[in-house]
């Protein structure tokens, strides 16, 4: 599924990474625990998280994750935005809860990594 379709479905707002709107997203992983994200060997995933701090973006950088979705309107800091831009990461915010985001995407065929 294209990233821009995911953003539409989740009433999302793309904060940076417009060049990634046509990227195909096949897998997703949802966690607030960055150590858990760092155990995922696959890189081509959409990270769904409620953790909005600089380590969310650092973890994505180290894991080669290019698509990050923050749930429940978590506020993105300027520091997070700058680091996301520097690393070419598409950063999206959605008003939906993590459960709702996961349910919608799972129903539409986005696959889990485990």
């Amino acid at each position: 599924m294209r990233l821009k379709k995911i953003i539409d479905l989740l009433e999302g707002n793309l904060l940076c990474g417009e060049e990634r709107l046509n990227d195909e997203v096949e897998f997703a992983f949802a966690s607030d625990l960055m150590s858990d994200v760092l155990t995922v060997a696959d890189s081509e995933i959409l990270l769904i998280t409620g953790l909005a701090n600089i380590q969310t973006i650092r973890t994505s950088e180290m894991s080669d994750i290019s698509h990050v979705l923050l749930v429940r309107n978590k506020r993105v800091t300027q520091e997070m935005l700058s680091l996301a831009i520097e690393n070419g990461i598409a950063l999206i915010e959605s008003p939906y809860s993590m459960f709702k985001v996961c349910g919608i995407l799972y129903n539409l065929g986005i696959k889990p990594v485990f």
Partner: protein
Amino acid sequence: MLYVGVSLQFRFHVTGGDFSSAGTASSEIKKVLKKLNVDGVVIKRAVVSLYEAEVNVVAHAFEGDIFVNISSEKISILLKDKGPGIVDISKAMEEGFSTASPQVREMGFGAGMGLPNIKRNSDFMDIQSVVGEGTTLQIEIYINNKNGEQE
């Protein structure tokens, strides 16, 4: 890739509690490894190990230094910190065991997964600690071990 016999050396200083800077050493090393055209899987294993270790220093120690040596064969990482040390290393290696503060947990860490994750991603790992003085962690990732299997 580097010629045989040539190596690159880096040193970073880490301040305990400085969470906004945690990951800057890993980020620098990632850029260097990419420039050297090291395989993507090897880069990820190296930077995930280094990042977890860097977060550990920020989370637990007063300060520390990171020394990274990149050769044509391996990425060698040495982290030396001044801090409380680890009372029971085998316990610290257990998945789920953690002594992290609530502040560390708020940053998305401190679930007792860091050291096991470093072990999983590296080809060699050695940890020495003196309680009340500090901890030394040595990690090696072999450049040609693309499948990540432990040797």
